[in-house]
């Protein structure tokens, strides 16, 4: 096994687990917890101490995952993204991952900055930001399901689905 692809695959998995793990943390744990915490006035503990740290690792692990994935594709990068024969399945996974990265940096993070008070915003703008960030985060949760299916594609998929 060549060293660069082996290290890229390892880093892709490590960073990807952190990224998707934090995405699942937000959707399965933090969002429902914030609702409960808002009811008893303890939400500030989450929004002040937990959410900014989780978002820091979330957005940067997304970048590392994508870059390590691109390094892993190497010379097959263009074939994957153009869904060429033999690379279409990993290409679908790569496109889904790229859309998710776009959602993180272009939709989720700018809106979270308003919600957490890192950027000035009126109450109305904060409410809009909450809704937009929630939908983008949920869209990424939805996209992670086919993304992981196509990323993990191998002999099992060929046997079970004829892919």
């Amino acid at each position, binding site marked *: 096994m060549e060293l660069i692809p082996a290290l890229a695959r390892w880093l892709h998995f490590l960073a990807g687990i952190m990224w998707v793990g934090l995405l699942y943390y937000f*959707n*399965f744990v933090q969002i429902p917890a914030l609702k409960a915490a808002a009811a008893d006035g303890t939400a500030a503990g989450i929004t002040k101490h937990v959410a900014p740290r989780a978002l820091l690792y979330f957005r940067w692990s997304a970048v590392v995952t994508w870059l390590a994935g691109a390094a892993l594709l190497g010379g097959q990068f263009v074939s994957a993204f153009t*869904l060429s*024969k033999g690379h*279409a*399945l990993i290409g*679908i996974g790569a496109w889904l991952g790229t859309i998710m990265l776009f959602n993180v940096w272009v939709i989720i993070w700018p809106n979270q900055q308003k919600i957490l008070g890192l950027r000035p915003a009126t109450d109305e703008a904060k409410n809009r930001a909450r809704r937009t960030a*929630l*939908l983008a985060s*949920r*869209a990424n*949760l*939805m*996209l*992670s*399901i*086919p993304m992981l*299916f*196509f990323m993990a594609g191998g002999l099992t998929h060929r046997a079970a*689905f*004829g*892919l």
Partner: protein
Amino acid sequence: MKNPLDSIWATIISGLVLTAALVVAAKNFLL
């Protein structure tokens, strides 16, 4: 109509449906 992304379980079901749709599309148009 309610947005399925408002419910975590509807989001997961949407992800599974999207997976199935992409598998069918890949088998018929890409492979």
